[in-house]
């Protein structure tokens, strides 16, 4: 048998843990609030002179699915990191995205081409709380030319949804 005082402290501790858990789940990505990015086709293969010299577009390259039951939202994009097999990486600004299609009811966005950078740029604004908004984006690569050595260049693109 534990002393009464010890039992009291254990109960206090358990209660505090439960509350912390509650707070944690309030913040984490969950079924009611999330941004999901799905890569459909995001690989550029520049194997011809023409593909090096002209702008390349991957149509419907990725899909953003957003549910925001807490209220209005904003979605942002940025290049989080790059990795390359050569000494000279391709800059983030060579990539751009453009909205191809969407399914949302209370939202605003630009259909212009948005060149990427390593700082957040706003893609979408959801004006009300929403469930199951979808946005389909093209991924565009500016003409690479012959300045970059043969190899593989990888960009990790980060999407952030905030709820003001």
């Amino acid at each position, binding site marked *: 048998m534990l002393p009464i005082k010890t039992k009291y402290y254990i109960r206090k501790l358990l209660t505090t843990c439960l509350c912390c858990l509650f*707070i944690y789940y309030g913040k984490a990505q969950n079924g009611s609030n999330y941004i999901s990015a799905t890569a459909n086709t995001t*690989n550029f293969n520049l194997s011809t002179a023409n593909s090096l010299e002209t702008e390349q577009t991957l149509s419907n390259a990725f899909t953003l699915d957003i549910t925001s039951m807490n209220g209005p939202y904003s979605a942002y994009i940025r290049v989080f990191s790059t990795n390359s097999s050569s000494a000279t990486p391709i800059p983030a600004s060579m990539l751009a995205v453009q909205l191809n299609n969407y399914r949302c009811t209370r939202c605003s966005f630009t259909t212009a081409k948005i060149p990427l950078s390593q700082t957040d740029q706003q893609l979408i604004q959801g004006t009300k709380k929403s469930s199951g908004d979808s946005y389909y984006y093209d991924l565009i690569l500016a003409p690479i030319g012959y300045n970059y050595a043969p190899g593989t260049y990888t960009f990790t693109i980060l999407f*952030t949804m905030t709820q003001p």
Partner: protein
Amino acid sequence: MKKKIISICLLFIAGFSFSNCLAQYSFNNTINATVTIPPVLSWNVTYNNTSTINFSNATQYTNGVTLSNFTTIQVKGNTPWMVNVAASTPYFSASGTGASANMPANILGFSVDNIATIYRLSTVSQKIQTGASSATGTSFNLNLIATPGYNYGAGIYSIVINYTLTAQ
């Protein structure tokens, strides 16, 4: 006991309120995009001059005939490259009653721009120019030199010359 239940409920409510009063929620997700670039070379071969050479006087037979800037080659590539030249056959094809069947490919030679070295044509591929990767392109001219001498009969002779661009 009642007091404890009430205090637990209050703590839950406080926790819930706190979580909803946070300044901003933020949710993230990522995808990867990849750019794959294999070695790529492209070129333009421009013929600036006629590919027919007429030998009409003794000086031409003695000294040969040079067609300056016979061909201009422009190469673009993301990797170092080389241009080779070779004849498709060891001998010219000959036509005409007095023509010789044994005029070899090496009566033709190539030089690059103003460089004195002459590459005598044969069926063995010869490297005549190299270059580094270049976004704007590297351009050079080939001069064609024909020196048949007096060893072959009068006639019409022709031969196919192959240029090859490859990565080094």
